[in-house]
């Protein structure tokens, strides 16, 4: 080595070698706004619903679908909530479109994307640790404004208003810093909060049905004394009228077209396992339960696509189920909607969505939460069509298309 061929006549040699080494290394450059990356992943498709095949009462009611947005949560503190877009016409997947659409927004989209929705002409993204709901144009993802709600979780829309759950209510009197959650009512025209209604502790997803708002209270900050109720809020008076007792640590809920509300519980991670519950909306009581671990679900027609992971201390692995529940029969009809073995390569399922027209199934893999995730597309038979790298913690998908009036 050069460094060592030093003799007393050339004492400078080693210093020169060191300087030469330092010149190998690069200088700091200005950091560019992150530009989108487009990759070809799927077939070119035109997705249109013929009028005569229109599903009556279908939740989605899509006439045609052009693409979908995917919100990557990004690990807490990383400020890496990013937005991806899949375009059916070209079969291309574009990562990280927000920076290009909004190059002037400091610190980009924010920290931990928790929910995504399209309502009217707008795209709404709940950015949990940035304490805001980002409001964008649904076609261009250009920023229109934001609604500031601390620790916001999930959103639903009804007649021009956005309803948002938040963990950050007032500190309850006489408790040790326990904070009730609330639902905020936001006027989508002005992006102002017009009213709030208190719920249980740490309310997660909400659903609007029967002129009421149903809110899944988790009590996630009260470990191990979780909440076990669904709050029922009257839409007209915007006050909580009752609570339905279900199970510990509720998370998602969704109403079907048979007057039923499906709720999953996370359980307490020790003795009470995660489970799926069905509430009859007429009696507002638990009517049924299905003994399967459910982390997340998606309702399409009468099919509730679920996945659930339950930790096994025997195998030191998660045991994952990818199932479909027939909500009319209240039965688990399959425990593996992925039929070609692809589930073996999914490390941490994190989201499930079904294209309401093609019935293609989308499953996201969040892996270890810090590495880039993967989005898998399966056909309706559960065979993999394609997969693509996403941002960190791919989670929430909404379809962009034209709806029936």
């Amino acid at each position, binding site marked *: 080595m050069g*460094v*060592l061929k*030093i003799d*007393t006549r050339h*004492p400078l040699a*080693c*210093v020169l070698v*060191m300087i030469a*080494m*330092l010149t190998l*290394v*690069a200088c*700091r450059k*200005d*950091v*560019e*706004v*992150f530009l989108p990356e487009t990759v070809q992943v799927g077939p070119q498709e035109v997705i249109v619903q013929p009028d005569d095949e229109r599903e009556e009462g279908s939740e989605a009611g899509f006439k045609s679908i052009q693409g979908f947005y995917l919100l990557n949560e990004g690990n807490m*503190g*990383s*400020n*890496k909530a990013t937005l991806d877009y899949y375009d059916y016409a070209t079969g291309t997947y574009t990562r990280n479109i927000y920076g290009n659409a909004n*190059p002037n*927004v*400091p*610190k*980009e*989209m*924010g*920290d931990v994307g928790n929910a995504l929705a399209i309502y009217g002409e707008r795209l709404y993204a709940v*950015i949990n*640790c*940035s*304490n*805001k709901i980002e409001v964008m144009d649904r076609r261009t993802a250009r920023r229109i404004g934001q609604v*500031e709600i*601390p620790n916001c979780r999930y959103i639903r829309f009804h007649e021009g208003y956005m309803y948002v759950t938040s*963990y*950050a209510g007032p500190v309850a009197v006489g408790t*040790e*810093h326990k*904070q009730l959650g609330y639902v905020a009512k936001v006027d989508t025209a002005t992006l102002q909060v017009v009213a709030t209604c208190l719920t249980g502790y740490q309310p997660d997803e909400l659903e609007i049905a029967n002129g009421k708002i149903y809110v899944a209270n988790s009590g996630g*900050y009260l*470990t191990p004394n979780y909440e076990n109720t669904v709050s029922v809020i009257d839409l007209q008076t915007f006050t909580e009228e009752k609570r339905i007792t279900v199970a510990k640590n509720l*998370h998602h809920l969704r109403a079907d077209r048979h007057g039923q509300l499906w709720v999953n519980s*996370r*359980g307490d*991670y020790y003795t009470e396992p995660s489970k799926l519950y069905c509430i009859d909306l007429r009696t507002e009581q638990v009517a049924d339960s299905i003994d399967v671990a459910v*982390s*997340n679900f998606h309702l399409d027609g009468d099919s509730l696509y679920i996945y659930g*992971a339950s*930790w096994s201390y025997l195998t*030191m692995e*998660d045991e994952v189920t990818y199932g479909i529940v027939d909500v009319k029969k209240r039965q688990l009809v399959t425990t593996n909607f992925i039929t070609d073995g692809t589930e073996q*390569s999914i490390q941490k399922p994190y989201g499930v969505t079904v294209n309401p027209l093609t019935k293609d199934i989308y499953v996201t893999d969040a*892996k*270890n939460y810090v*590495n*880039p995730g993967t989005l898998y597309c399966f056909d309706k038979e559960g065979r993999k069509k394609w997969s693509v790298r996403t*941002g960190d913690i791919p989670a929430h998908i909404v379809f962009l298309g034209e709806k029936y009036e």
Partner: protein
Amino acid sequence: MYDVRIRGRRMLSASLCLLTCAMATARQTAETDSVVSLDDVVVWGSQNGKEIVPSQRLSGKQLEGLSSLSVADAIRYFAGVQLKDYGGVGGLKTVDLRSMGTNHTGVFYDGVQLSNAQNGQIDLGKFSLDNVESISLYYGQKSDICQPAKDYGASGTIYIRTRRPRFKPGKRTNVQVGLKAGSFGLIDPSLRWEQQLSEHVSSTLSAEYMHATGKYKFRYRRVLHDGTTAWDTTATRQNGDIGAVRVEGGLFGRMTDGQWNAKVYFYNSERGIPGAIVNNVWTHGQRQWDRNFFTQGSLKKAWGRYELMVHGKYTCDYLHYLDPDTTRLYIDNVFTQQEAYLSVANHYSLTEGWDVALSVDYQYNTLDADLANFVYPKRHTLLWAIATTYEWGRLRAMASLLGTYVTDKESRHPGRMNETADCTNRLTPAVYLSLHPLRDRALSVRAFYKKAFRMPTFNDLYYTDIGNTALKPEFATQYNLGLHYTKDFRRSWLKHLEAKADGYYNEIDNKIVAIPKGSGQYRWMMMNIGRVKIKGLDVSTQTVWMPAKDWMLALTVNYTYQRAQDYSDPTDNDPEAGTWGGQIAYIPWHSGSAIAGITHRGWGLNYSFIYVGERYHNSSNIRANHEEPWYTHDLSLMRDFNVGGTKATVAIECNNVLNQQYDVVLNYPMPGRNWKMKLKWEF
């Protein structure tokens, strides 16, 4: 040796000596130390014939010139070191040696290891440089064999040595008062009192108070592809304040063929935790209170060829963490750790060139926390080590074997303990070789192999909900081959030259990593799934120049190349974005540092430079995870005055002279240009 010529010029002599290990012995004879400790020679003088691989070392004027406040700031200048720095005066600072991970670093304070059974990390930002005489870094272990068994246990070892009292003839008391003040609202008065108590016993008392608001301007900026500004935002770092008190007392004694010392350390602080800067969130409210107390003692005595060394320590660490943010989970937790430690080391010289040693250590740790479902772990650790060194002409060799036996007890209710089934019983070997191929011993070739492991910490094992009691230890295996050249010159401007180059290969197996598991969305579980392979090269040179009378220039340059690859998940092998084979998070391929110091009579000018090359914050090496290089230039100007027989020093420092805006850790902005003034008066 040329240092004889300049012995009279105290400052030059001191600086030179501190730069060159070769002269450590010379200094002790030249200076009128009342405590010429055997410990100095064995533990710190690396060229005393017993050490096979010498350390990297910073001390004295060079350390003072670095404009560092804490040990962490200074350690950045060593080759192979990456500092994880969350920014600011009070921010967390931990070191990663040769990419093996923070938990593989052993930090020793005056000869006894600082440990943290709770999370295994020592925050070196908490250790002030005010009372520190030298910092040494060894990869593998110190290749001296008269040492506690713990010294064989880490994969890389940092020795922090506090100042020993030294008295001029006829003086029995030394007093030093100091004041540092500067940017971030820093005010830091300190006092040091050294007293000669008897012919053989001296004492020191060192006290320091530090307060800083921790506020500084930071700027984030992004550009468009054509170079025009996309966004540019400047804000003030909030909640980075710190108030800390440190009091240290020590007794140092000498006896026939031996010495002893005892010390007490107390540190009490309150700080804000500034947190990550993310969209729409520019300030955080987390607070942390630390109270660290330890008392330790050591005794060393020789009887002919036999030498005995005893160390003992008691530690009590209190940590209170509060997150009062009304929009998030309210967290208010108190953790108390205690540790008792005793070590006996025996050393025997069989022949002139053949030594053997046996050390036995015992350690007991407990952790108390007010978490729900907490298991109140207690840990017994028994370590033993046998070692031998052999010298045969120009070849020297050392071999050691360390046995570690660890058993934990846990209970859901304090008072009722259940012994866990898991106990760990492992043997880890190390072999060191060095050869001087040339007659003048200027050049040496050295090699070492070492296996070591780190135990899962109490947090890894028992932290409510995420802990995993099935964890196995995490292993580090090191292979190192290096060359070392050192020479002093009489006639040229260059007086001293030292060059080192070490190539190494490390493997980390069973790396403990948090993995999301279970039915909840944010459920984590600690798992032994990580595997990292590291190939690296550390090169460093040190030179001392005397271009003219009374002018001295010392220059140190370090360069590190590291290829640290993640081999944890063979399925994640996409050539573009896969983590398989990717450079692990926050490890640059290229990094380096340079320190240049010029002294002329009472003046001193110091320049220091740190470079950290491009890196990724994840082992998926894609553009979204890319981090630009950063580098800082620091300058300090120092002047010594003689005021009626007392010595005063004034120094002005400017750090990050070019005002670079950078993050070491994603979203934790570092300070730009900042200033500090130091005053010191010794009498």
